[in-house]
């Protein structure tokens, strides 16, 4: 069984896809939602929202961009698509870590544990690693059983289960705690997109790594090994932009790639939305026959879908021992 993700865009990932788009407004929320529901019905584990590699438009509008800031779109979509997970890109250069940690914790509550953050780094890997440490630390502000809601005693939470971060290092000074409850899946899933080179933040902390079709895979595996990261804690997905139109040939390609590479699955970034519709209608049934995708899943969180472990609060083993 492989994992499948879908990179959502209004028209597709080809610059000129908008020219042949169906009538109506493919950028509208309802049109984007219907794409998400299509992916959900096909058994995809998650939808992925890119964010222009953290660039901001200066004087032109791009047909590749979604006209909704990705985290806001995820929040809205997750109330209308009840099962599929969501990964949203957000740049460390564009958000304060406290604000970003809050936003994603909120998304995880709103989606009932189906949110993940794609870390778009700033290029300064020391700063980015510290940034991720702050966010990760804020996500441990509350233990799993901190909120007891004891009406009779007037105790909303157990004060000893709230943790003040008090982070003070080179780039950030953040007291905490986070003012959002602990995530329903422990923590939102941390993800990275690798294009062309192995990025140190993704390798050291991401639980889901999407790599550009192939060549850097051996480098990535070596880097994960060097850091002592267990293979079971990381999902590696290949970004696939094109595939044969013939369903059998397409299924052959996915089957071959899943057998021959170290990847756990695929993220589809099709040239047009029509290509994706064709994939779900014609190729997915063939993949089902070959046991590479399943339309029904048992779990409910993004971690369940990806088979990723639920992070345990650092204070828990301490208490247990």
């Amino acid at each position: 069984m492989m994992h499948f993700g879908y990179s959502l865009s209004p028209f597709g990932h080809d610059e000129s896809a908008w020219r042949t788009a169906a009538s109506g407004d493919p950028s509208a929320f309802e049109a984007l939602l219907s794409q998400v529901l299509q992916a959900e019905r096909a058994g995809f584990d998650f939808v992925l929202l890119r964010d222009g590699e953290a660039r901001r438009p200066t004087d032109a509008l791009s047909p590749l961009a979604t006209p909704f800031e990705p985290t806001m779109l995820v929040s809205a979509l997750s109330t209308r698509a009840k099962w599929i997970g969501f990964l949203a890109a957000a740049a460390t250069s564009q958000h304060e870590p406290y604000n970003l940690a809050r936003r994603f914790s909120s998304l995880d509550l709103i989606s009932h544990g189906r949110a993940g953050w794609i870390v778009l780094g700033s290029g300064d890997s020391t700063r980015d690693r510290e940034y991720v440490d702050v966010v990760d630390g804020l996500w441990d502000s509350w233990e799993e059983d901190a909120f007891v809601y004891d009406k009779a005693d007037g105790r909303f939470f157990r004060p000893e289960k709230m943790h003040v971060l008090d982070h003070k290092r080179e780039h950030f000074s953040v007291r905490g705690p986070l003012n959002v409850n602990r995530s329903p899946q422990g923590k939102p899933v941390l993800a990275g997109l690798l294009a062309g080179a192995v990025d140190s933040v993704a390798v050291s902390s991401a639980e889901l790594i999407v790599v550009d079709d192939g060549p850097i895979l051996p480098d990535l595996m070596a880097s994960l090994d060097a850091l002592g990261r267990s293979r079971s804690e990381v999902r590696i997905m290949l970004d696939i932009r094109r595939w044969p139109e013939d369903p059998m040939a397409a299924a052959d390609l996915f089957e071959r790639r899943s057998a021959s590479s170290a990847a756990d699955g695929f993220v589809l970034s099709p040239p047009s939305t029509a290509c994706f519709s064709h994939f779900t209608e014609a190729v997915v049934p063939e993949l089902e026959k070959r046991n590479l995708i399943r339309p029904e899943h048992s779990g409910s969180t993004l971690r369940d879908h990806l088979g990723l472990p639920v992070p345990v609060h650092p204070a828990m083993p301490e208490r247990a021992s």
Partner: protein
Amino acid sequence: MNGRKMRLGAFLMAGGHHISAWRHPDAFAPAGSDIDHFITLARIAERGKFDMVFIEDAAAIRERNPDKASQAARSTSFEPLSLLAALAVNTSHIGLVATASTSYNEPYGLARTFAALDQLSGGRAGWNLVTSASDLEAENFASAGLRPHAERYERAEEFADAALALWDSVGDGAYLPGGAGSAFADPSRLDPVHHRGKHFSVDGILESPRSPQGRPIMVQAGASDTGKELAARTADVVFAASQTIAEAQAYYADVKSRLGKYGRQPDDIRIMPGISPIVAGTEAEARAKYRQLQELIPDAVGVALLASYLSIGDLSAYPVDGPLPDIPQTQAMQSRQQLIVDLGRRENLSIRDLARHFAGARGHWQVIGTPAEIADAMEERFRLGAADGFNVMPPLFPSGLEDFVALVIPELQRRGLFRQDYEGRTLRANLGVPAPASRHSLRA
């Protein structure tokens, strides 16, 4: 009868505005982290034809002492913008106003996020601009500490200008639906921002169509002189906290009198003080509801909340049955502090009295009674130059909001004071405040 109508906001908050709402037997204690609870509240408010729902915010927990904090339900909540994005696609007419700070955001990111809310809701977004006054927030962003009041407002002024320019950076019709042959966008309808100021450098355009309501509604609640000036220049809606009708009238006249110098008309801005209504079929029932809530307030919680409204660290050294000590004026929320001190002196209240009073209505105007009594009180302030509408703060959710919609709204409608149905699909249309002209609509 005068055709002027009240505007109403539903100020949403977890289990209710009362500090001990979560302990009430009817309360669903985890309400603050339950999205379905908020969707339900927004739909109740929409059924009642409220102009908007409103979410307050602080980018930190609200009480430093863990023991005190743990006795109240106010330490965690949803981040407001993602919360409203979820409400946007589960409602159809009601406005969605989120609080966000100019001290701990930057203009591009914030303008972009509100533009997304505006698109998701079809033109129902509003931004309650705050400058953030607490040390606990400052400590989550930098070690330098809370900025002085004047500097916070200087940054806020520049922030608002940059955000407004960004919302104007993409004109009507900039995205071309044209299909093959034409271009994706019309560059002549783009107006890139090149802002260089003391606090920000902002370049670029938003990747979003122009707002269906021209731009998001601007809301403010600042009651200091600088706050009122910023509101007079930029706000469409002003929230206020006034206890007496005289205070409310003075505030109302003051803000409206400042509009002229910015080329605005008095009717361009809606002043909506808070009201904490406790309504029931009879006055005795309403009083009983109130008593039941008040009895649930632990002294430690009420006094800590009072101390935070006074912007002082601690009041626990003073006898809870005695009067307020002299309070030094702080950098933080100057106007709220004055309001509390004045009330304590005027009515000779003890620290516990004040604590319980503010825990109930949090500095806002509280009215306890029958639907007719509550409508009378609202009508008086509406007709006598104290309010254009109200931000309604029910003590308990959802029942307090359901009661207001079932009992008070029909009474206001019968009196011709409130709409029977929405005037339009955007928040701006329903508030009836003028839309800014697109720089590009003139070129069409």
